[in-house]
């Protein structure tokens, strides 16, 4: 058994696995940045209630939020070619993750803004700020502080969800571990231990960060 572990963790295999971790992190970071920006914009649009527009955006957000991420991955990777666009695997994965996670963040942002006391906006308006100035300078900064723990936990699930992109053959950790244990069944357990550990370390660090931010804010 021990020999299996030693054989499985050969330098080549480890390098290959860590390359997968690199792709996991690359896809996660780009999607985090993208979904944070798009999600915040969508959340604000949903909050401010522009006639018709906000309702339509809100409905689209709800539709995407209630679909499985795997389905969205299929749409971007297998569906888009039918419309004449053929994305590479990594952009397709990033696109799907960004679309899905921005709708999740939009909900967090909207409820975060709603949680800010309405007196803040009234005070800002009474002091001569416009609605948008009040939103940008007074309400949003306070809302962001409140939202940080929820946002970080959303990013944790984003990192975990990158594993779903193995279904479109994104060469990340899980996919690469399958290739390694596909060559030698003795490597199955060592590979599962390795990727479980790698995911755990990344996500656990993020959840410790989330808990620290939650405590600091309370």
């Amino acid at each position: 058994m021990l020999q299996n572990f030693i054989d499985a963790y050969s330098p080549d295999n480890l390098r290959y696995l860590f390359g997968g971790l690199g792709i996991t992190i690359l896809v996660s970071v780009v999607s985090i940045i993208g979904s944070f920006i798009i999600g915040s914009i969508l959340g604000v649009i949903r909050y401010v209630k522009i006639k018709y527009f906000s309702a339509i955006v809100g409905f689209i957000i709800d539709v995407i939020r209630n679909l499985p991420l795997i389905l969205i991955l299929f749409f971007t990777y297998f569906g888009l070619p039918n419309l004449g666009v053929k994305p590479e695997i990594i952009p397709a994965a990033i696109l799907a993750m960004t679309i899905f996670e921005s709708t999740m963040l939009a909900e967090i942002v909207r409820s975060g803004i709603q949680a800010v006391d309405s007196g803040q906006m009234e005070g800002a308006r009474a002091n001569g700020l416009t609605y948008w100035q009040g939103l940008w300078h007074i309400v949003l900064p306070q809302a962001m502080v409140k939202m940080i723990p929820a946002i970080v936990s959303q990013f944790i699930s984003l990192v975990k969800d990158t594993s779903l992109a193995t279904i479109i053959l994104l060469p990340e950790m899980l996919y690469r571990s399958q290739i390694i244990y596909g060559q030698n069944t003795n490597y199955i357990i060592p590979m599962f231990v390795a990727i479980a550990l790698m995911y755990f370390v990344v996500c656990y660090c993020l959840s410790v960060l989330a808990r620290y931010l939650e405590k600091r804010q309370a």
Partner: protein
Amino acid sequence: MIHIFQNYWGTLLYGLGQTLLCSILALVFSLILGTFFALLEESPSKVARGIARVYIEIFRNIPLLVITMFFYVVFPLYVIKMNGFTAGTIGLTLYTSAFIAETVRAGIQSVDSGQMEGARANGLSFWQAMRHIILPQAFRYVIPPLGNQFVNLVKNSSTLAFVGGFDLMYQGNVIASSSLETIAAYSAVGVLYLVITMPISYYMRYLEKRLA
């Protein structure tokens, strides 16, 4: 998309049934497991709290797919043979139970501490007080987040497609590859998912508003 429904309604319905069956089984079992671990976390014993903490952290921080694949790939080799549906449901149960444990714990903590003190002062043991006084009150707070967990469960049950669980997503792939109309096939599957998830999440939002 309409003709996908017309031509493949049997396949789609079967997939929908498997998805619902898996989600409901996983919900029931993860509710039991999750409540159990939430109670352990709130118990006076340090060891019990430690066990619960480790369990929750492990299953919250490892991707669902890795857990499911573990049961699908490793278990048959060393322990017991199981089909994709069973492996998927077990993985989903363990994964969701960690989140439900956190939800239930938050619910327990939101019950006023005077309730426990009052129960103890009236001669109930810690577990009796939990069972008869605290949990019934906690579950009222917990219903909206649990409903949202169920929506997540339905969505996450699509990982069954990886292990040949014949769920909706799996059937969607089958239809997409046999009809070659990927967009129509995936749209049909999407509509069926929304039929389950949208009403629940709107109802939970309504409940949240009413409770607040």
